């Protein structure tokens, strides 16, 4: 079966590429996939970086090129655009549900902005309790904070607001 080479099919293929560090999320779920367009014979895909230093971005770009090339698109280019600035508010609802099922508490609303920190409750993805505490705002990847649940005593990751 050959793929029909249209912008819509290119979007569908690119949209299935997953985050290498959180493989339950596609780049579409993450809100990283911003644009797919045909330019003459080429496909130009625009991605928005998540965290400035996130090493997964290069991998996502490479995976988009590989996926589209495998489906017959001969000339694929990936552009990264910083604007509009990526935010976790672009994460899809299904992405949030997949994250929670995977054991990562999904991002919440924008935290209060004063210099003296105020902690908001984050729901434990394992037992659902709100009796949780932040261990560190920095975790195993740029986008995650490290929490522990005071009810079920399990540690868990929280995809923090960006």
């Amino acid at each position: 079966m050959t793929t029909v080479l249209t912008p819509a099919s290119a979007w569908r293929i690119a949209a299935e590429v997953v985050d290498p560090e959180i493989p339950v999320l596609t780049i579409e779920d993450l809100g990283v996939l911003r644009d797919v367009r045909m330019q003459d014979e080429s496909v130009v895909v625009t991605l928005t970086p998540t965290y400035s230093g996130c090493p997964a971005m290069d991998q996502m770009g490479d995976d988009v090129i590989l996926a589209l090339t495998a489906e017959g698109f001969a000339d694929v280019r990936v552009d990264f655009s910083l604007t509009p600035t990526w935010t976790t508010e672009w994460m899809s609802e299904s992405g949030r549900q997949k994250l929670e099922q995977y054991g990562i508490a999904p991002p919440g609303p924008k935290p209060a902005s004063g210099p003296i920190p105020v902690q908001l409750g984050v729901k434990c993805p394992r037992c659902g309790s709100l009796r949780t505490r932040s261990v560190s705002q920095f975790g195993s990847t740029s986008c995650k904070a490290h929490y522990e649940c005071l009810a079920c005593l399990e540690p868990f990751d929280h995809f923090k607001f960006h």
Partner: protein
Amino acid sequence: MSAETEPSVTVTDVELDAELTSTGLVASADEAEYALRIGDDSLILAQQLGWWISRAPELEEDLALGNIALDLLGHARNLLHFAGTALGKTEDELAYFRDEHEFRSAWLFEQPNGDFGHTIARGLLTSAFQFELYTQLAESSSPGLAGIAAKSVKEVAYHRDHAVQWTLRLAGGTDESRSRIERALINTWPYLDELFRDDELHERFDAAPRPSALREPVMNVLRQVLAEAELDEPKTSESSGDGRHGHHSTYLGPILAEMQVLARRHPDASW
């Protein structure tokens, strides 16, 4: 192994150039000079913070300081890349092949890691400064600088939160931890003033906030934190540091030597 037998390598210029230039943004000479100043701040601090990985007081701090370094490196890459569009250089050329007098970072960022208290005190001052700077720069008339600032400020907010929480914890901890953060703040405070000095660049370049306009909001935040920690504001004289014009303390040279040696020994090396 002799140099001849080392594997041949190529620079992935295409990947490096994909960011920002793809949007057609080319920096002006003034934008480039400004981007180098604040980009070098982040680059030098990122290089310094990397030292803590495996050496911090607890595993969570290895991760925290490493993640902060990674964010700062990302900001530096974006800013140096943008500066490079005016200068005809890649971000790697700017990071690895400029000499000490060509770096534009302020002295605060090259101050040694010291003990954990010194790293936290330095982090409190740098993050309070960068937070106000990027907040204002996000409104810049320069789309290149505004885009980078809007992204960076979200990450610096977490850096500031980290430094504030540790400042409060050390100040409210044991006599030992309190005396260490007090001493660290006294030793770090003299380097604040340099961040707020206007110079000839700001006379002609109005797409960035004047350093002098950042003094009040930054000091307000620092005073709030000191009050919460029940610490006195250090009464110190001002450093004569002038990193924005390439005049550095003795600390920068060794930092650069370590950061640049691999790239200079193996030009164009890539992973």
